[in-house]
């Protein structure tokens, strides 16, 4: 163990290839004989495929094959990885999600594929796809979740006429919550929509399927967050091909934010067709297609009530939500509004009674699944909007109201973890401290004076608070298994010490921007006391890495990093045996530091490199000990980890136009121990931008026919450089008590806390000028804010 790297802002080792244009993303890969696929997709949200005429398209020179759903009648659809049953015990409804819609059946969202054209070039495939003549019978469609429950709503799946995928309730019995609310002196009630957003990773999805007849082996290159999971789902559930005959590679991936977790139909289709044709098949989404086919996020319609006693203590929380699943159940979709959302409704508060009633519905839209934060941003938005609104309604200070209701500090070691009303037990937390620090950075008193002055002008000011806790480091397998997960959520790591003492680390955690190639190596180099240059990190290839559950839920370091530490412990234990033998002492007499084993109290030592060489050239070697120095480990966490923090937004609102300008964004986050502060800050920044994006800019707009009317970057607005200020960040460290690195996870925090802070700030600004809206629909476009004042 040394302390050279952990805690240092080491510059990223992966950067060189990206800044010189040498990154290798899936679409950059060209295989010999590679063909190109282009899909024929439904232009309607709901329409029956009456017939498909391929003649003209097939006649185009360069077209190799065209497949329709009829060619895939015997192939399964893509599966859902999480089962949440109805509260009355009825099994979750899982309609087949076919790769291509067969003739006679119905397309269920705009972009649902009916045929795929495979041609010598992408251009030919695109041109030929236009010649595929599909006769459609257009049917009525429903896009909004609440509309799907109306009695005469169009049916997404004929066999499920009420459009419900499942319903669910969680927390304290509703009678207890009702009784608590009866006693309330004040109830803050809010009906709102947590709107549907599009993840928009900058690299569109891309896949190459390749079948090698010589070895009877498939390779799938895929822009995924979890190659092994894709292999498992595709082999076992869709194509029925043996897993050991399939290699899945996730090369450089240009962002995911959740949208590249799921197993998509196109992955299975390029793999399947490469075998049919004996040639590799590539498909790269264009942006318009991405809007129609990537899984979206959020999309809840909620009514929430929070009851307070006369002193402002929270008495109860009662919630009714309808969540949109889209047309099919995507890989993790059922978990998002339920176990990743309902379980977080305690927030940072001592709320004694909580109940959520959730209905998850099918609509004629593309699937909704996890997007940065997944369920936790929705929970935080709900709680933190209620807190600021309650403060305004009761004439209380929003910070004071929080201090009053916070769970007191607990470290999870001396004091026990905090048992919530919604199943989770928080590991450690000090919530007051992050808010105090945030207020200090804001200079709260000064701000309120400035705000009072501004209220007299046309440029009014507002401040919004958000204090959050999240559950990440996903997750203990037994726990998630009991909650419906169909997979474990452990992680694997292999640490291979080469004979020369160089170290190869194989992790199942995929890096697509998070900087694993740097941070994981910082951990390994320090644990082994060797230079970072002696360590290489391998990720993203199912043939070289034992297994992996992938990167999402801010789990890479907490779960994947812990697996690496376990393997290092095994390396050092075995190395100690070899060292003791070489140094002719007892193992207990040795200590390991700075890359060598030393006999305590002497200058006798042996270096890590010498021990490694001995392990592979075992001439003088402990009897009965196996040669080699190479260990694999699987780490299954004992609990989730619970990062928390305080986000504060300051906005200026132009009273004449409604335009909101974000003036300041303050974030104080506690993500446990920090391996690389530079990278953690970067993760926070990115999360903040996405959270701010949801508050002010982003959101799908479907028309009454289920058409997405803003499916391009000309219409779907994401934050640009000139929309954002420099972020003001600080951190506090409350180590996670149950994993070896004491880390909690930083990937999603920014996106979880920031959205309600920004919306609260706009509401606060309007109240300061005498307007008293309870809610403004997100995103807070200029027009909506203007309407709230007029």
């Amino acid at each position, binding site marked *: 163990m040394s302390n050279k790297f952990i805690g240092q802002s080491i510059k990223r080792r992966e950067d060189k290839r990206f800044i010189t*244009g040498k990154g290798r993303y899936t679409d950059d890969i060209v295989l010999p004989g590679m063909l190109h696929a282009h899909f024929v997709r439904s232009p309607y949200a709901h329409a029956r495929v009456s017939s498909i005429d391929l003649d003209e398209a097939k006649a185009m020179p360069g077209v190799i094959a065209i497949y329709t759903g009829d060619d895939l009648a015997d192939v399964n659809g893509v599966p859902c990885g999480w089962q949440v049953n109805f509260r009355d015990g009825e099994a979750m409804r899982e309609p087949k999600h076919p790769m291509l819609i067969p003739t006679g059946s119905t397309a269920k969202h705009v972009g649902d594929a009916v045929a795929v054209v495979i041609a010598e070039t992408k251009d030919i495939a695109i041109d030929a796809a236009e010649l595929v003549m599909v006769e459609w019978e257009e049917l009525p469609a429903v896009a909004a979740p609440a509309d799907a429950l109306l009695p005469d709503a169009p049916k997404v799946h004929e066999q499920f006429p009420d459009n419900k995928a499942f319903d669910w309730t969680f927390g304290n019995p509703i009678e207890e919550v009702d009784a608590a609310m009866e006693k309330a002196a004040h109830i803050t009630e809010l009906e709102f929509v947590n709107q549907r957003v599009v993840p928009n990773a900058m690299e*569109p999805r891309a896949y190459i399927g390749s079948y090698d007849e010589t070895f009877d082996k498939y390779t799938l290159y895929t822009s995924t967050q979890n190659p092994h999971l894709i292999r498992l789902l595709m082999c076992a559930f869709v194509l029925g091909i043996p897993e050991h005959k399939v290699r899945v590679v996730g090369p450089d991936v240009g*962002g995911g934010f959740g949208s590249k977790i799921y197993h998509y139909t196109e992955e299975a289709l390029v793999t399947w067709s490469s075998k049919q044709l004996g040639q590799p098949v590539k498909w790269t989404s264009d942006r318009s297609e991405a809007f129609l086919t990537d899984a979206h996020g959020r999309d809840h319609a909620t009514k929430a009530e929070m009851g307070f006693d006369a002193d402002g203590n929270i008495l109860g929380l009662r919630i009714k939500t309808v969540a949109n699943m889209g047309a099919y159940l995507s890989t993790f979709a059922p978990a998002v509004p339920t176990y990743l959302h309902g379980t977080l409704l305690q927030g940072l508060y001592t709320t004694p009674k909580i109940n959520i009633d959730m209905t998850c519905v099918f609509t004629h839209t593309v699937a909704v699944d996890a997007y940065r934060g997944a369920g936790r941003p929705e929970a935080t938005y709900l709680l933190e909007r209620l807190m600021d609104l309650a403060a305004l309604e009761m004439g209380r200070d929003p910070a004071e109201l929080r201090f009053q209701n916070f769970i007191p500090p607990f470290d999870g070691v001396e004091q026990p973890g905090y048992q919530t009303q919604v199943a989770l037990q928080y590991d450690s937390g000090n919530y007051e401290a992050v808010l105090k620090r945030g207020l200090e950075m804001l200079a709260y008193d000064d701000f309120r004076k400035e705000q009072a002055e501004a209220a007299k002008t046309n440029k009014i000011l507002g401040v919004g608070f958000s204090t959050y806790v999240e559950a990440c480091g996903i997750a203990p397998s037994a726990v998630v298994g009991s909650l419906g997960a169909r997979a474990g959520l452990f992680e694997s790591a292999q640490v291979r010490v080469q004979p020369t003492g160089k170290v190869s680390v194989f992790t199942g955690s995929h890096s697509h921007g998070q900087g694993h190639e740097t941070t994981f190596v910082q951990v390994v180099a320090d644990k082994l006391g060797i230079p970072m240059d002696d360590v290489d990190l391998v990720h993203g290839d199912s043939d070289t890495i034992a297994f992996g559950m992938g990167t999402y839920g801010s789990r890479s370091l907490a779960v994947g990093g812990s697996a690496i530490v376990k393997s290092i412990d095994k390396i050092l234990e075995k190395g100690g045996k070899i060292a003791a033998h070489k140094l002719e002492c007892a193992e207990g007499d040795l200590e390991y530091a700075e890359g060598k084993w030393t006999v305590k109290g002497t200058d006798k030592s042996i270096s890590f490199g010498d021990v490694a060489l001995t392990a592979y050239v075992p001439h003088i070697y402990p009897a009965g000990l196996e040669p080699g120095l190479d260990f694999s480990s699987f780490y299954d966490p004992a609990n989730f980890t619970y990062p928390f923090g305080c986000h504060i937004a300051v906005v200026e609102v132009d009273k004449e136009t409604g335009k909101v300008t974000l003036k300041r964004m303050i974030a104080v986050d506690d993500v446990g121990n920090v391996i690389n502060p530079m990278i953690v800050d970067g993760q926070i*920044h990115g999360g903040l931008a996405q959270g701010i994006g949801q508050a002010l800019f982003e959101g799908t707009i479907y028309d009454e026919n289920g058409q997405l009317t803003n499916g391009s970057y000309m219409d779907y607005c994401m934050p640009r*450089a000139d929309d954002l200020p420099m972020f003001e960040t600080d951190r506090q460290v409350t180590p996670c008590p149950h994993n070896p690195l004491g880390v909690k996870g930083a990937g999603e925090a920014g996106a979880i806390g920031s959205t309600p802070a920004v919306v609260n700030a706009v509401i606060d600004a309007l109240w300061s000028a005498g307007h008293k809206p309870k809610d403004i629909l997100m995103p807070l476009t200029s027009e909506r804010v203007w309407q709230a004042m007029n």
Partner: protein
Amino acid sequence: MQVEINVNGKARKAEVEDRTLLVYFLRDTLQLTGTHVGCDTSSCGACTVHLDGGAVKSCTLLAAQADGCSVTTIEGLAIQDTPTTMQLHPLQEGFKECHGLQCGYCTPGMIMTAADLLKRNPTPSEEEIRFALEGNICRCTGYHNIVKSIQWAATHTTKPEPNQQEEPIDADKHLFTNDVTTGEVVETH
């Protein structure tokens, strides 16, 4: 039609369809895959390269329009000192130094846009930097560290010019294949 475009100091000749966009000429014909495609609407800037010294979106330009012109891509920004060593452009250094990238997909376009800015305005303010990045979308960084990276580059003086002209090479006689096992792009001729 046949085009001849000087790319990163090398004259590259190739037969392309009239409708070929410059970005696909670079990516598919020349295998210069550092220039990316992130949208269909000239909005995201991932495809930004320099045409005769100014930033352009190579997805909104025909290869035919660049015929006879000089193009610099991200691959041509650093100076290749020797076959094995290169001197990075200050912007490349700056992005690494200030953690101006995460997934790396928007990065080449960001760097090329920033290079165009610094050429016109060597000491931009934060506001000028943000304004200049109006046509480039990053989904990872929240732009905070991109702004800092550009400020870093503006205060570090060596600004190497792109590679100078070399002998013409015929792109279509210049073969590339992809190593199946490693996925590496190899120049075989």
